[in-house]
């Protein structure tokens, strides 16, 4: 192909490329050779290569250009040159012609599909299936079915792989091929079996029984290619996940198969099986051991990929089963010096998770050497791991804090430094002993910190924590240095920090005032303003008085109003005689606080950093409720239910309810969403009829002022009930609001609205609402320790039931308790079952329940219920729940 370019003498110095100086326009011109009556197939191939080169480099063809090339290319089907034909196949796939163009090549491709040349057949199938649509597919379906069982493996694979792709767009057609695919699964060609297995599984993926049968037959049969074996392992673990495991005998179905794969000759199969075992639900250490053993062997492999795969998997295992991984620690330690930095980082973070307290110092020494030559992103992962290690072994804070302060002094980017500072701040908060040394490290850091953001963060933190230490005065120097040396932003926050020391520590007051007075001459107005404000409020006119509480609250109290609301209120405020009243700012949070919390979650880091702890929804609810004055007197929130939908999906207004249970109150939180762009709802309330819930009395309603399109809002209704009474009932709900038309083009609502109402489904308070699902790790111990004093035992007939497991689930749901030790799963065909439940009843009373079920031949289920709790009346209450 050297004739691609006429070598230019001037360019001899440059790197030689056959595509030097290639231009789209000229190549499109060259494509005219496709139309020659006498085809030069070599030359045509070269032109197609050039076109493909252009596309590959990211060049795009306009619609007209692509169509022209496509039509010219179709002429090339006349040539009998195999090489050219294959280039034609390639370019047709790249051009992805539109459906009206496809017709032009369909007949040529169909001819090739039935050609005697296998290369043609396989490729024509792949091209045709790539560009075809549903109508054409029915025409060629017959050939595809034949091709699947073709004796040539390349043809069969081509048809099967095309089937996998087509299943996404035309599932109903591909599903008709399952007989042929089934036959292909038995094929002796390794890859045909692999592709057939993939397709067959996708056809049947919604039929659990069929998948289970498939896995059962294949795990006993022969699977030829390692790829197919990997696939089968994946399907097997899916089946294991979905089938209830048989915990009584301790055997897991198909575990033997997975374990057998650990002795397969292909490394990819061994690894796939080992990984599948580590990811089994509730895997036991006995099951883990053989998998860990093969992974440990991989750790000392000469292949980096193998080491990486093994250490990455072990790293994940270490999060849940650190003890199981400790055996590999010696191999891990040698990986710290691995050439591949990803492997080294994974090894270190694994060691940090599995290490014991005595090994910490040695480990830190090794890591210190390693830290200097890895990239920032890896360093952040290590810092995170060290932080969790420190929280695990608080006694070791000294060496870990030293490590953090050392790396804080070294070079590093913002993200890395921020990770270190955050870690130190967390350690100071959680480990009281670490406070003083940690604060000093931070002080030293801000002496030479190039990041304004970090400086101000640390100064703020110093202001909060510093005054509470034994000798607050030693921090003053560091803070005042900032006022002298830094930019205006840092100076301003240093002034605030100084004022905090002044307010909190009376003995420092006179000295602080001197420093603050100096700041009055600062050349930045914000700094001067702050200094003036603090001097005046703290009484800096010379009289040393005790700072009163109001001043402290004013200066340093947290702002309990959402900033967004404050901002809107301030914007709406027109300067008049009347002063702006901060208490008029609504405290309710506009958008769903949960959604915000989620988005604030940590971004996943490149390496297997521990996932951020799931944000506690209860916390979010508690914060939300306590911010509403009407509900702030209800006391501690006991439980919040999961949202219950009160409307059908895709109705005009979507409403769900969350039930918040307090000792003496129940609050319904209605989350409403308006799905009509042309409407604005105002004064939204839910009118609740509690006539079927006599023990409840409505005490408060919190309407939602405005509910614009697609912005969820909440309205609340609170009920009072007697403390300690298990009050249940049914509530009927009706949404009431004023609806205003919105002009979709301007987004402005009309002045006048119409009152309207909207019927919602009923909500219910049931016994389970008073029960928190709290598991115990060792049921037997917990049971023994509660003692038989308040034990209540009784027997119940549950009547005829569909199955034993259905009866067990019904009782669990009725009580709303946490099943322990996997006892919620009933072995198939068993005649009896015991189930252990634990929970916390309202009033923080611990409750444990033992259920014994028996079923007779007529499906009558009998149950023995034994309850132990810390309170006699609660034990009785549980029985009452079941008795009703």
């Amino acid at each position, binding site marked *: 192909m050297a004739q691609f370019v006429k070598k230019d003498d001037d360019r001899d110095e440059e790197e030689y490329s056959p595509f030097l100086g290639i231009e789209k326009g000229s190549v499109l011109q060259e494509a005219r050779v496709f139309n020659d009556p006498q085809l030069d197939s070599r030359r045509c191939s070269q032109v197609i290569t050039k076109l493909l*080169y252009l596309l590959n480099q990211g060049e795009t063809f306009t619609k007209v250009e692509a169509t022209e090339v496509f039509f010219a290319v179709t002429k090339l089907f006349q*040539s009998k040159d195999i090489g050219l034909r294959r*280039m034609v196949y390639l370019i047709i796939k790249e051009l992805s012609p539109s459906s009206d163009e496809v017709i032009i090549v369909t007949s040529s491709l169909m001819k090739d599909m039935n050609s005697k040349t*296998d290369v043609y057949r396989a490729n024509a199938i792949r091209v045709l299936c790539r560009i075809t649509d549903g109508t054409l597919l029915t025409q060629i379906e017959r050939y595809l079915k034949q091709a699947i069982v073709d004796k040539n493996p390349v043809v069969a694979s081509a048809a099967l*792989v095309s089937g996998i*792709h087509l299943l996404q767009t035309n599932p109903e057609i591909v599903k008709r091929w399952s007989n042929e695919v089934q036959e292909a699964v038995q094929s002796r060609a390794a890859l045909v079996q692999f592709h057939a297995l993939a397709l067959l599984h996708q056809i049947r993926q919604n039929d659990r029984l069929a998948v289970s049968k498939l896995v059962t037959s294949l795990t006993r049969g022969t699977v030829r290619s390692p790829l197919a074996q990997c696939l089968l392992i*994946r399907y097997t673990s899916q089946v294991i996940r979905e089938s209830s495991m048989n915990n009584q005998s301790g055997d897991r179905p198909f575990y033997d198969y997975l374990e057998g794969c650990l002795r397969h000759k292909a490394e*990819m199969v061994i690894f796939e099986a080992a990984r599948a075992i580590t990811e089994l639900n509730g895997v036991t250490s006995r099951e883990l051991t053989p998998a860990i053993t093969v992974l440990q062997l991989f750790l000392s492999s000469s292949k980096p990929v193998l080491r990486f*795969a093994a250490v990455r998997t072990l790293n994940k295992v270490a999060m849940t089963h650190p003890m199981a991984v400790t055996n590999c620690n010696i191999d891990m330690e040698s990986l710290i010096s691995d050439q591949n930095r990803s492997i080294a980082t994974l090894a270190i973070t694994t060691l940090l998770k599995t290490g014991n307290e005595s090994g910490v110092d040695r480990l830190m020494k090794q890591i210190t050497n390693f830290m200097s030559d890895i990239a920032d992103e890896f360093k952040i992962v290590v810092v995170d791991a060290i932080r969790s290690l420190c929280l695990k072994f608080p006694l070791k804070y000294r060496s870990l804090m030293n490590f953090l302060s050392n790396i804080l002094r070294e070079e590093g980017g913002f993200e890395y430094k921020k990770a270190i500072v955050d870690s130190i701040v967390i350690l100071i908060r959680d480990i009281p002993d670490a406070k003083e040394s940690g604060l000093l490290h931070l002080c030293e850091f801000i002496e030479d910190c190039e990041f304004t953001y970090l400086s101000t963060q640390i100064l703020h933190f110093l202001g909060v924590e510093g005054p509470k230490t034994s000798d607050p005065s030693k921090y003053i120097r560091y803070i005042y240095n900032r006022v002298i040396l830094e930019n205006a932003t840092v100076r301003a926050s240093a002034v605030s920090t100084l004022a905090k020391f002044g307010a909190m520590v009376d003995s420092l007051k006179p000295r602080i005032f001197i420093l603050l007075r100096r700041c009055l001459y600062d050349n930045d107005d914000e700094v001067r303003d702050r200094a003036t404000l603090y001097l005046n409020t703290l009484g800096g006119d010379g009289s040393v008085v005790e700072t009163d509480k109001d001043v402290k609250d004013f200066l340093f109290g947290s702002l309990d109003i959402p900033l967004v609301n404050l901002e809107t209120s301030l914007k709406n405020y027109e300067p008049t005689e009347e002063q702006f009243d901060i208490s008029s700012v609504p405290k309710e949070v506009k958008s769903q606080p949960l959604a915000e919390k989620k988005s604030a979650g940590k971004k996943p880091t490149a390496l297997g950093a521990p996932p951020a702890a799931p944000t506690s929804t209860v916390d979010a609810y508690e914060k939300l409720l306590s911010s509403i004055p009407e509900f702030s007197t209800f006391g501690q929130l006991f439980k919040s239910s999961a949202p219950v939908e009160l409307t059908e999906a895709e109705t005009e207004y979507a409403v769900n309810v969350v039930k918040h249970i307090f000792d003496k109150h129940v609050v319904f939180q209605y989350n409403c969403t308006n799905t009509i762009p042309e409407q604005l709802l105002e004064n939204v309330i839910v009118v609740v009829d509690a006539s079927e819930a006599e023990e409840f009395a409505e005490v408060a309603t919190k309407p939602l002022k405005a509910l614009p399109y697609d912005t969820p809002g909440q309205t609340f209704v609170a009920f009072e009930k007697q403390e300690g009474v298990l009050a249940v009932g049914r509530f009927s709900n009706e949404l009431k609001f004023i609806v205003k038309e919105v002009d979709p083009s301007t987004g402005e609502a009309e002045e006048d609205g119409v009152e309207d109402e909207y019927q919602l489904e009923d909500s219910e308070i049931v016994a389970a609402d008073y029960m928190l699902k709290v598991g115990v790790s060792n049921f037997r111990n917990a049971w023994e320790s509660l003692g038989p004093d308040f034990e209540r035992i009784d027997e119940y007939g549950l009547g005829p039931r569909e199955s034993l497991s259905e009866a067990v689930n019904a009782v669990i749901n009725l009580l709303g308790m946490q099943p322990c030790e996997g006892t919620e799963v009933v072995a198939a065909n068993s005649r009896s079952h015991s189930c252990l439940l634990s929970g916390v009843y309202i009033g923080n009373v611990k409750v444990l329940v033992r259920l014994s079920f028996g079923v007779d031949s007529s499906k009558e289920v009998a149950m023995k219920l034994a309850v132990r709790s810390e309170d006699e009346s609660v034990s009785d209450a549980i029985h009452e729940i079941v008795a009703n």
Partner: protein
Amino acid sequence: MESCPSVKNILLLDSEGNRVAVKYYSDDWQTNSSKEAFEKSVFTKTQKTNARAEAEIAMFENNIVVYKFAQDLHFFVTGGDDENELIVATVLQGFFDAVGLLLRGNMDKKEALENLDLILLCLDEIVDGGIILETDANVIAGKVAAHSIDSGAPLSEQTISQALATAREHLTRSLLNLELASPASGFQVGFCSQREH
């Protein structure tokens, strides 16, 4: 996890990070600029590593990238976060060795560009829409090298360059020691040897 083992892209870059041939199978990179950005970041971060004797591995944007270099050619195969690293490595090895066979051991950029058609066909034979078609380098190279004249083609269509090319391919094939390695190419090989002897 129930999904079929798959790869997200295959990249062949030169020693400056420029494309020789690339193929994307995933929607993760919609535009050419996002593709180029990915290539650039992968190239810069792996540039200094020594991935010549054994394939190396790294993680990028929640993908695993397995790579191997030969002279001024950099080979990369990307798989999802959950993918079995060894499967991705097998695809890379298949691609790497097949290109080596097709370029008759001259693994450099110049040779690769001069035989770009073979490399593109090679990519086409390894993976179809993300699904692994074949990982055995001999079979892949065999399928690609199976250029030959259709049984129905008249002799007159053969030009001198074609004859040379056929000779070259014949050489390739003897190098590959194909000898009916796969029934697909077996037919072609059988026919050619008849014709040329």
